[in-house]
């Protein structure tokens, strides 16, 4: 079973919740941090990272001795990664989406498959938790291939918790589209409500079952609750603001270590979700 934890926007406690779920599972569980731009899960789970690989994408390199400057590769490239000035062909690997179109149209074998490093993938164990995350290289604009590499590590028959990237654009969708259930973490503020609505609409379109956790539930008003009621989205849990939680978080101490009673609450929640998914 795959459970993704998203939030519409960062900072609502998505990592807190996803790491708490992993820590409360009580069995062999996998935690995948799909927020490859800003992975934070490792701060709370403190895994021993034993495996590290570089993730690369395929990009073309020009063999000038073979190139006849026919312009075919430039014409097929939809991303302006290939430019031609007179008889000179230039390649900008950082713009390349690795569609391989240029390789297929070049009749002179003048393009050589080269690679561009987009980031690293690290994995290891944090207690019983199989931990995987990716870190995109600084200045690298395309995170999605790395996110996919992290997701490919998902093991079919293990309970997998996916810490999804913030927002509702492509990386979020990519992280949740195979999930059996999505938990949306929000705050009871106008900002929280607005971001929740965007994310909930996406999930509704994909017909992925979802529920909401309201974090810092007493710092705000009841509009989130009312929205969930009107949309028939179950509110799974409300966690009131506690200075101790905020201070613990600041120190990299997980929620379930600051408030141990929550462990059972989270493991019950996993049971409830498993039941709903099985229906």
């Amino acid at each position: 079973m795959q459970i993704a934890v998203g939030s519409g926007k960062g900072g609502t406690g998505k990592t807190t919740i996803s790491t708490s779920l992993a820590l409360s599972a009580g069995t062999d569980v996998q935690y995948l941090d799909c927020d490859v731009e800003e992975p934070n899960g490792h701060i709370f789970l403190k895994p021993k990272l034993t495996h590290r690989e570089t993730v690369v994408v395929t990009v073309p390199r020009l063999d000038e001795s073979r190139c006849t400057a026919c312009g075919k590769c430039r014409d097929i490239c939809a991303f302006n990664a290939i430019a031609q000035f007179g008889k000179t062909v230039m390649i900008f690997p950082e713009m390349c989406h690795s569609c391989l179109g240029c390789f297929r149209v070049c009749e002179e074998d003048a393009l050589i498959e080269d690679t561009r490093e987009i980031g690293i993938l690290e994995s290891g164990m944090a207690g019983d938790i199989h931990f995987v995350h990716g870190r995109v290289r600084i200045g690298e604009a395309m995170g999605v291939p790395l996110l996919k590499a992290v997701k490919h590590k998902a093991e079919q028959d293990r309970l997998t918790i996916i810490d999804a990237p913030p927002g509702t654009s492509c990386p979020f969708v990519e992280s949740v589209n195979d999930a059996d259930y999505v938990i949306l973490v929000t705050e009871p503020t106008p900002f929280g409500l607005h971001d929740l609505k965007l994310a909930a609409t996406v999930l509704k379109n994909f017909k992925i079952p979802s529920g909401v956790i309201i974090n810092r539930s007493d710092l705000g008003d009841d509009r989130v609750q009312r929205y969930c009621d009107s949309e028939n989205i179950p509110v799974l849990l409300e966690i009131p603001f506690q200075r101790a939680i905020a201070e613990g978080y600041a120190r990299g101490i997980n929620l379930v270590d600051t408030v141990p009673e929550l462990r059972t609450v989270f493991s019950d929640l996993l049971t409830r979700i498993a039941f709903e998914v099985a229906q």
Partner: protein
Amino acid sequence: MEQTIKEVLILSGKGGTGKTSIVGSFAHLAENKILVDCDVDASDLHLLLAPKPTETHDFKSGVKARVEADKCSGCGMCAELCQFESITMGETAVISPLNCEGCGVCAHFCPEEAIVLQENHCGSWYIADTAYGPLVHAQLFAGEENSGKLVSHIKNQARQLAETTNTGLILIDGAPGVGCPVIASLSNVDLAVVITEPTLSGKHDLDRILDLTEHFKIPALVCINKWDLHSEMSDSIEKSCNDRGANVLGKIPFDRQVITCQIQGVPVTADDTSLAGYSIKAIWKKLKEHL
């Protein structure tokens, strides 16, 4: 005489650091400026500024492939070529628009010419009036690629607007993260202000964002929000910022009033009872000295 236009970008490594409340306050405090919201994915600034659009435009970027089923013979060529796992084969080919990156390779090689490429309408952008001056903002449709193109586009629009209206300051609410949209929001910027929180993950995100501003050689200053939630961490962030030449402009205490203001839809600096509001005023005063 032509006036130089200063662009100030407010960033945070990650959402939830209180950036929008702070930007809303800067919008309240700054005179004569144009506001831009570069968070085109999940923007919240408009909730504080209550913009009234004066112009609404479609944003189109790239293409998406579509199969004309009556022409498709089901040979499977396109599915084999597609690198983005966006084509599945049934009787005919079926393209998932969500995965399609619009490379056009399938259309190029389809022996039946059964694939058409259609311009992709991926969002909308607006110029709006607010109580604090004009705002340029946008909304990307859900699931679209946040490639930074829409961000670059609205930034260019803001710049044009600044030129025609002779406005010297562009105040930009940056996109979250360190990916393409942030890189796009950094271009042309004179000064970046990074909002962070005194937490381990806040420190981690701050370091990444400062690596990025350094990479693009943009001077950066830092504000620590909710500093009193962990004062030792706050001190350590301050020190490490100073060490790397990104000075701390100021610190803002944790203040429940910030959320009350959010619910009422007013900037914290407009609330005379808010401690956070006073700190933001002091920060703004210092920030102006850097312009």
